[in-house]
C-alpha cells in the first residue's frame, strides 16, 4: 500500500468539466443561464414571461431539471421554445456532466439563448458549477427578505438576483432595501432586478440585461 496525497476539493473535477462546457457553448455563440431558486418561487412563470418577450429576437431552449415529473417542459414548449425534461433521480442539483448530457440530448443547433431551470432549492445548486455563462437566482417576496442570511452561498455565487412577485409587496413584510443591503454585503458586484412576471413590472430591465450580456458573450 502506498499513500497518495491529493488535497483536492471534491468539486474540482466538476469545476473543470463546467469550464470546458462553458467554452464550448461560447464557441457556438450560445449564452447559457443557470436559473436557481427555492421551490415555488416562480421560476417557470418568470421563464415563460421572458420567453414570450424575447422569442422574436432569439431562439431559446430550456433544460428543465426536476427530481420527477414533466409539467414544466410542457409549459415551456407550449410557448414555442425548445425544451427537455431531465430527471435527476433524487439528486438535489445539476452538475456539469448532467447538464452536458441534457443539452446534447435536446440539441442546440441554431439556439442563441439557453436556460437551465435548476432543481428548486437554495443550497446544493450553489455548490456545483453547471457550465453556465451566468448564474441567476430568484428570491420571491413571499419567501422573506432574511434569506440572504440563511443561504449565503447562493447569493455569493449568483451574478444576478431577481426579486420576483413584487406585485405582492403589500401583503408581506418584505423590505426591498433591507434585502438589497444584506445581499450586497455578501456580494457587492451582484446585479439586482425587482420584477413581477405577472404584471410585467421591471421585466424590461432584466430583459435588457440579457440582451446586452448576449451581445457581449458573442463579441
Amino acid at each position, binding site marked *: *500500500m*502506498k*499513500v*497518495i*496525497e*491529493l*488535497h*483536492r*476539493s*471534491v*468539486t*474540482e*473535477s*466538476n469545476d473543470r468539466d463546467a469550464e470546458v462546457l462553458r467554452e464550448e457553448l461560447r464557441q457556438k455563440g450560445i449564452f447559457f443561464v443557470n436559473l436557481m431558486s427555492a421551490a415555488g418561487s416562480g421560476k417557470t412563470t418568470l421563464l415563460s414571461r421572458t420567453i414570450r418577450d424575447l422569442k422574436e429576437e432569439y431562439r431559446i431552449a430550456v433544460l428543465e431539471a426536476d427530481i420527477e415529473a414533466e409539467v414544466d417542459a410542457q409549459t415551456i414548449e407550449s410557448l414555442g421554445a425548445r425544451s427537455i425534461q431531465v430527471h435527476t433521480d*433524487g*439528486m*438535489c*442539483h445539476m*452538475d456539469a456532466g448532467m447538464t452536458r448530457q441534457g443539452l446534447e440530448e435536446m440539441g442546440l443547433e441554431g439556439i442563441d439563448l439557453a436556460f437551465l431551470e435548476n432543481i428548486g432549492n437554495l*443550497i*446544493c445548486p450553489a455548490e*456545483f458549477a453547471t457550465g453556465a455563462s451566468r448564474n441567476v437566482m430568484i428570491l420571491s417576496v413571499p419567501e422573506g427578505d432574511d434569506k440572504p*442570511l440563511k443561504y449565503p452561498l447562493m447569493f455569493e455565487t449568483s451574478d444576478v438576483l431577481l426579486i420576483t412577485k413584487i406585485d405582492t409587496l403589500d401583503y408581506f413584510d418584505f423590505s426591498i432595501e433591507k434585502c438589497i443591503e444584506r445581499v450586497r*454585503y455578501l456580494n457587492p458586484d451582484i446585479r439586482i432586478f425587482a420584477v413581477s412576471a405577472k404584471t410585467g413590472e421591471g421585466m424590461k430591465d432584466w430583459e435588457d440585461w440579457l440582451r446586452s450580456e448576449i451581445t457581449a458573450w458573442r463579441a
Partner: protein
Amino acid sequence: MHELSIVTHVAKTLDEIAAENKLTKIGSVTLEIGEVSGIITDYFVDCWNYFRRKHPLLQETELKLETIEAVTFCEDCRKEYKTIEYGRICPYCHSEHTYLLQGNECNIKEIEAED
C-alpha cells in the same frame, strides 16, 4: 440527498486518479470535511456504504473522515473566533463584518492504494 451527490463526485475523482496512476484497488480514502460545509457525516457514511458496493473500484475502500474546525475572522477587531460557537457576530467587538477563514471545505486529502 446532498451527501449522496458528494459521494458520486468523490467516486468520479477517485476513478480519474486511479486511471492516472494505474491503480486497481483503493484501500482507504481520507476526506477533510469542514464543520460548516453542510455535510452531515452520519448521512455521508451511510451514502458511502450504499454507493461503494455499486462501484467496482471502491468496493473495499475504507472511508476516513477528518474534521476541519470552522474559524471566522473579524475585520474590525482583527481577531479570530470559533464559528460554530458564535456565528456571524464577533464575540469580542460585536461587529457583523466577519468572514469565514476555514470550515466549509470538502477535500480529498489522501488515498492508500495498491498498484
